[in-house]
């Protein structure tokens, strides 16, 4: 399975701004700074409306003290109300975007590790794309769900001071939002959406989890996910539950409410459970996602290719057979046309292919169809190099030179030509590598490897073999 994912880095910036606006709201409340409006606008900007010089001064002080990182985009006064629009400076937001992609990469890698795929290939492509290749996946849907889910776990309080119904009709009080719990009734298989009015402020997130395990509830025989918080998380959890006894705490996953139990008493020990009528598989996948961590931003699937196993083996088999047949024909031809020297060329060719294969394995590059194209070109050019040399040698011998002198002259004359041709191809390959994406890059890699190895085998290796026969063994004639 081959996936290209794109990290929605814009959303990462947005959620940071959202978090900051929540913090700002609680600061304003604690410092008794009255404001007329505090909203997130245009995705990643905060708009604050203040009235009264005292409030404005206090707010300015607050900005300088706690929110130094924010950038003031504009201030305008209208009817005695000062409106300030704030956002993050470019350096900050590009840093967030960069981190978002890196984190997403790590998280996805963790998830796939735990899913248990042999030899996964996960790498970053450009600024915000991630390439994932998973060989041998049978259940592609499950893999995609696991990779793509944001898995942002948040604990928020249910807003019981305001009216749920009026919120549903559009009067959402500031600082709260309407979230839904989505459950599938196992008998009727109908999806039931239950609305909740939730206070926006996140009290605790999944970042503080140390572990998530699947357990079976002994009473109902249903699987649930048991989570453990770290020390700080545990203390926070204790504090939150202690301060909100008898209130409902909503467990929100990816903006969906999983459950909203009433807090009976202060809970210490940092343990909680997430229930929700899971199947064992769903529970297991949720535990994996929670353990590996939340994705900092949503990911979209840009490209997906699944090659069924039968086609995969078929293609490999057919490709290999045709290459072998072609290769054998070339080898035979060389021997027939150039006799003994042809054999030397064949040895060079075989070594060439081994070198390329080794290089590919060393670089951990996947062999794609474009890669095969590169190999074919290399074989063609390698044969070419040898042909160039042999033709020269034949020419020299027809003028009357001895075999040794002919070989020397042949190699000398041909080297320059071979170098020119191969360097030009190498330039092309390097440019392609630089600018190309994915498969084009693969082609460039195979081509570069091929050029270098054919230079080596044609110029150095064949020469060595010739020299061995002519100098060491002192052959008087040349089979060419």
């Amino acid at each position, binding site marked *: 399975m081959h996936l*290209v994912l794109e990290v929605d880095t814009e959303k990462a910036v947005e959620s940071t701004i959202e978090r900051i606006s929540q913090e700002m709201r609680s600061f304003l409340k604690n410092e008794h700074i009255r404001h007329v409006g505090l909203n997130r606008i245009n995705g990643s900007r905060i708009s604050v409306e203040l009235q009264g010089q005292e409030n404005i001064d206090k707010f300015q002080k607050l900005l300088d003290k706690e929110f130094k990182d924010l950038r003031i985009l504009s201030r305008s006064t209208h009817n005695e109300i000062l409106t300030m629009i704030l956002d993050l400076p470019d350096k900050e937001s590009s840093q967030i975007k960069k981190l978002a992609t890196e984190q997403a990469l790590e998280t996805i890698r963790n998830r796939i590790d735990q899913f248990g795929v042999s030899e996964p290939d996960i790498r970053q492509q450009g600024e915000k794309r991630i390439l994932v290749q998973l060989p041998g996946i049978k259940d*592609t*849907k499950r893999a995609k769900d696991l990779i793509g889910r944001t898995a942002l776990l948040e604990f928020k309080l249910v807003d019981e001071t305001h009216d749920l119904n009026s919120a549903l009709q559009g009067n959402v009080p500031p600082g709260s939002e309407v979230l839904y719990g989505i459950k599938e009734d196992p008998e009727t298989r109908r999806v039931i959406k239950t609305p909740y009015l939730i206070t926006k402020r996140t009290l605790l997130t999944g970042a503080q989890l140390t572990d998530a395990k699947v357990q079976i509830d002994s009473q109902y025989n249903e699987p649930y996910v048991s989570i453990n918080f770290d020390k700080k998380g545990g203390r926070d959890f204790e504090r939150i539950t202690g301060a909100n006894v008898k209130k409902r705490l909503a467990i929100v996953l990816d903006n969906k409410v999983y459950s909203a139990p009433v807090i009976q008493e202060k809970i210490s020990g940092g343990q909680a459970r997430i229930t929700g009528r899971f199947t064992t598989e769903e529970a297991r996948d949720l535990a994996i996602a929670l353990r590996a961590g939340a994705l900092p931003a949503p990911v*979209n*699937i*840009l*490209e*997906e*290719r*699944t*090659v*069924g196993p*039968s086609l995969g083996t078929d*293609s490999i088999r*057919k*490709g290999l057979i*045709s*290459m072998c*047949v*072609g290769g054998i*024909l*070339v080898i035979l*031809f060389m021997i*027939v*046309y150039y*006799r003994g020297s042809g054999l030397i060329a064949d040895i060079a060719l075989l070594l060439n292919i081994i070198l390329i294969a080794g290089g590919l394995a060393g670089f951990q590059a996947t062999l794609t*169809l*474009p890669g*095969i*194209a*590169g190999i*074919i*070109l290399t*074989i*063609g*050019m390698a*044969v*070419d190099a040898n*042909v*160039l040399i042999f*033709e020269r040698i*034949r*020419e020299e011998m027809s003028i009357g030179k001895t075999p040794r002198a002919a070989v020397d002259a042949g190699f000398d004359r041909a080297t320059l*030509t071979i170098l*020119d*041709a191969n*360097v*030009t*191809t190498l*330039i*092309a390959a390097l*440019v*392609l590598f*630089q*600018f*190309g*994406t994915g*498969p*084009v890059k693969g*082609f460039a890699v195979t081509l570069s490897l091929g050029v270098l190895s054919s230079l080596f085998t044609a110029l150095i290796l064949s020469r060595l073999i010739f020299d061995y026969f002519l100098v060491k063994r002192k052959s008087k004639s040349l089979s060419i």
Partner: protein
Amino acid sequence: MQFIKPDININFVSKRNIAFFISLSMILVSIASLLIHKGPRYGIDFAGGTLIQVKFSTPTSPAKIKSGLATIDLAKSSVQQFGEASDNEYLIRTNISIMTSEGFSSKVQKALEASTGTEVEIRRVEMVGPQVGKDLREKALFAMFFALLFITIYISGRFELKWVLSGVMAGALMGAVYLLSVFHVSVPYLILAALIVTLLLFWFLELKYAMGAIVALIHDVTITVGIFSILDKEFTLPIIAALLTIIGYSLNDTIIVFDRIRENSRKYHKNPLEFIINRSVNETLSRTLLTSGTTLVVVLALFMLGGGIIHDFAFAMMIGIIVGTYSSIYVASPILLAWQGRGRKK
């Protein structure tokens, strides 16, 4: 054993007008076909969309497949037979990038099994978002253009010692293209315009060897793409790889001939250029035909035994090798003569 006698002497150069005529007409036919079909028939790699390869256990008909697809909202897809008739394999293509939702392939499988009444095996599913396709097209074009420019510098330098001149020209072109691309000028037209400007610059700056090589390359690529367009074959990523291979191959051929021309220019400097070119082409003929022949053999094996995707790829390679060999002899070298008329008039 030798195919070509060492003292062969075919007068290639004298035939260059006929060759020019043939080449020009082939190129015009290719361009005409491309215009008629409104560009090459892009596969999903470039246009975005979804592709499904299915195999049936008994023969069936596209009509039955289409009716099955209609039941799952895929009535607008194209269905095409794939591979050998005995394989019973079909390719289903739609330009909707179905964000492969809940069990898409099993949905397709069930629908097809219901409408055709035989067992269905989903061999391959590919989905490419439209943005990725566009990105790929643009990047591929940029890569090829910049590669051409770098090659120009090297060739002009090695064969005519015009390193600086070609370097400056290439640098300026690269800068201009890059700048314009940042301003969201449509990439395909931009590259086309840049190519034309490049060729004009070659002519005026008298970068003869580079001109010969690049024109031969453009000739090869255009004709290959044209033939694909005429036969209505699909243009996918592997085909691009084939094109790149052909470029590399043709370039290799051309340089070998140029090298001999350069060597013979020194040896026979008293003789006219026509004679030198003829001699060089004749001398390298044996080698040219041999290399093309051996590579063609390998590609032929791929063509006949390789199966589905490799088949199309091998086909492109075959055209490319044949046309490439032809262009090295009849296009690249005679271009070197193009400046002669101008030279004498001075």
